[in-house]
């Protein structure tokens, strides 16, 4: 019920972010500094309650819930079977601002429609979603904020 935050359902905003986002991704690949391109993020947190890096860490470590470690290496040695589809999230806090991360979690496909990374906080229609998952984002607003809080500690 509490899932879709109405103020974020503005496709135009994601559209504008797309081009700048691509530039930022290129910049990030070669540079160690944050590419703070305007429009390349979602500045406003999705919740008003405080985020918890501790909960975020537990979420990322939980492969069934967050799926992150299916594709990413994470600096959590106790988590086994980390995938290598994408980047190692170590240092992510130095690569991206919280606003940039928020956009990359909420809907990475706004930046790159072909992205393998799933959109974690969208209720856009998808095909054949299993009954248990129907009309639900992968993570809820608080969970997104918690994950961002933990990612920001990775520097």
């Amino acid at each position, binding site marked *: 019920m509490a899932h879709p935050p109405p103020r974020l359902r503005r496709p135009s905003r994601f559209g504008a972010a797309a081009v700048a986002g691509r530039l930022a991704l290129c910049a990030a690949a070669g540079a160690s500094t944050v590419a703070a391109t305007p429009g390349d993020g979602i500045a406003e947190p999705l919740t008003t309650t405080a985020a918890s890096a501790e909960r975020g860490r537990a979420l990322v470590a939980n492969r069934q819930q967050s799926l992150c470690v299916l594709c990413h290496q994470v600096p959590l040695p106790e988590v086994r079977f980390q*995938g290598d589809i994408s980047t190692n999230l170590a240092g992510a806090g130095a690569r991206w601002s919280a606003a940039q991360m928020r956009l990359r979690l909420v809907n990475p496909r706004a930046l790159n429609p072909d992205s393998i990374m*799933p959109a974690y906080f969208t209720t856009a229609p*998808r*095909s054949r*979603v299993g009954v248990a998952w129907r009309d639900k984002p992968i993570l809820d607003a608080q969970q997104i904020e918690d994950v961002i809080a933990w990612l920001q500690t990775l520097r």
Partner: protein
Amino acid sequence: MLLLLASGSMYAQNSPEMRRSGITYTSPGTQALQADDSQNPGMLWVRDGAQRWTIPSGDARKSCADCHGAIATMRGVAARYPAASPSSGSAASAAGRVITLSQQINRCRVEQQRAPAWPPEHADLLALESAIAFESRGLPMAPPAQPALSAAQTRGEALYRQRIGQVDLSCHDCHDRLAGKKLGGNTIPQGHVTGYPIYRLEWQAVGSLQRRMRGCMTAVRAEPYAWNAPELVDLEAWLAKRAAGMRIESPGVRP
């Protein structure tokens, strides 16, 4: 560098030379298990199926062998399924429709032996399919040129490229773009269908291609198509075309 990798994987999906059986992505232990018939657990199903081939069944009291002769006459059959069903025989209900090997076996069971159809993944059905597939081991996958089959392949490819489930990924995303990468602890294979039915260590049993595909659908939090749904038959038809020319290795062993 990234560009090179990207074009490399584009090449992989288009060029037959870059195609690799799923067995090549598995551990040396799994490869050894598949290579040695005295160790390959799938051979239990093959032997069981060869026995069932000769056992009379149904109201007709006929065995498969009564009509077809030795199971060796099935050489080459598995290599061309799915296919438009043969139109010979008395009951032509399914004639012209594209069916899988397992559906053809069931068709003989119902129409020829006059016995109740086996449900999906029934042990006898998997055993017979394993025995028939084994007869084609070493032969290239060879889907026939049939208009109905060609239409099924086209529909199957569209389904293969469609993103599905809450995770919103397509078969193509994983099996063409990410083959060889690790998804958690599992290496993503190219998804070629040369080993079916396979013995899967995770299942501790032999299972069908449909069971395998349904597993991938559940993994992306999609509602799997029902057993033998037209979509699954179309996907099988597309995957057979995609693997055309690759050699059959049934019974495959996979993690």
